[in-house]
């Protein structure tokens, strides 16, 4: 589903991503872990063709990431998601549905279902300027779920969410995983990652340290947090 081959991204003297290669299979729930500035968001942005790699190839469903068609069935939630303040959450979701070419009745139906899924009933018609950060994040997640994507790319999805929101997100991701959706998760919340994801990759200073099944990375009696700290601190 996702493939990175010898991907490098340099910003003048800084190497943000250094010769990274890995793949994520269809139906897999994958976590990309790393400390701040490790290059996680850069990888996500290269997958979406927001940033072009200095060298290497990225593909989604066998289609190079530079081609718009590869984003046909992708849902994306950005870190620090933003929504135009002059729109309501409902209007924002409708726009996302329109951009995916959904028919008006289908778009309305999906918006209704998504508002329920993200727990924002009753607030969907308020202007987003009145929303809290967590509420904006919820609508961002809703937008990512629009059109029933096959691949969900979530960059720090728990940012701004309260503990109840985090728990609801985990339950939602577990349910989506159960439906066979491929999930690419960028997160700092290692305890949540350990509960949801099947595989993980840890990167530091742009270099891939490990990519394996979580059960193989975390041995018995160990925790993902302990492994993460050990690998990152060398």
């Amino acid at each position, binding site marked *: 589903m996702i493939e990175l081959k010898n991907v490098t991204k340099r910003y003048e003297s800084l190497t943000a991503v250094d010769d990274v290669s890995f793949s994520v299979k269809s139906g897999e729930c994958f976590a990309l872990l790393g400390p701040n500035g490790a290059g996680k968001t850069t990888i996500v942005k290269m997958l979406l063709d927001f940033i072009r790699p200095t060298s290497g190839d990225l593909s989604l469903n066998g289609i190079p990431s530079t081609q718009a068609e590869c984003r046909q069935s992708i849902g994306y939630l950005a870190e620090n998601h*933003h929504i135009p303040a002059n729109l309501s959450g409902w209007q924002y979701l409708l726009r996302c549905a329109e951009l995916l070419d959904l028919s008006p009745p289908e778009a309305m139906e999906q918006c209704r279902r998504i508002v329920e899924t993200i727990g924002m009933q009753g607030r969907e018609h308020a202007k987003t300027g009145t929303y809290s950060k967590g509420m904006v994040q919820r609508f961002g997640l809703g937008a990512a779920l629009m059109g029933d994507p096959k691949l969900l790319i979530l960059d720090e999805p728990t940012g701004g969410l309260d503990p109840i929101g985090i728990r609801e997100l985990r339950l939602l991701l577990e349910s989506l995983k159960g439906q066979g959706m491929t999930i690419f998760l960028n997160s700092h919340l290692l305890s949540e990652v350990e509960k949801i994801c099947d595989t993980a990759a840890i990167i530091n200073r742009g270099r891939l340290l490990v990519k394996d099944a979580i059960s193989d990375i975390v041995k018995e009696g160990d925790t993902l947090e302990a492994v993460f700290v050990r690998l990152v601190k060398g």
Partner: protein
Amino acid sequence: METSKALAPIKKIIKYTLVDEMRQKSFVVMFVICAICVFLIRGCYQGNYMVNGQALDAATIVRTLSKVTFHIIAAGVMVIAALLSMRIFRNDRNEGMQSCILSKPIARWQYITGKVIGLWVLSVLFMFILHSIVFLITSINLKVFMPEYLVASLLCSINLLFVIVAVLLLSLQMSDIVAFLCVLGVGIVGFVADGIAAASHSQMVQSMVQQSAASPQSELTWWKIVYYFWPKLLGVQQLASTLIEREAFHGFGSIYPLINILLYCLILGALLFKRFGNEDIV
């Protein structure tokens, strides 16, 4: 089938650009102020004008004043188009619409095309409505019917396309306000240069030059080359105003400004697509 598939997202981006801009309070205020100013010009038509001690007839007053108003509106809307364009990328970036759109199966060229056409349609409508007010005033109040006034307005829309593409391109390279000022500077220099050139071709100035018999004019100087290649925004306006005056075109020289601006639009447009293609979406 393929074409309609490619056009569908462009149409949506055009719609969002129009709706988002028209929802802005600053846009509405700007439009209302401009419309009121154009309405106020109505009073000028009722005055008595004397030239060399002779009173001008009503038809001459209407045509001359309408032509002046035409130029003022066309130039003013160019400034407004530049103001609207300079913040379009920044707003889309800050409000998350750029990443929202480009994370869907929409190519960057479709996004840019939608934005440029959306802004262009908005600016052309803005200018056309203001010109239509003048047209209605002259038609209803003064009984002088000038349909060519509206055709001239549409001809001037090419200037708006130039301004939009130039500001969008420059706003990717520098801060928004600097991009706006640069394009404004290009416009002002072009207007002043065209004004000087027009004055130098007048009989009065030519006779003064002959009398003084100063240094003979060189055939082709560097500033002449710069002058001919400089964006001919005023030239396009003058070409459009010849329609109002019902004057005949005088060969290639008359349509050169139009070709000049069209070429600039094509070149700057190509650079805009190329530049945005390499832009990091943050």
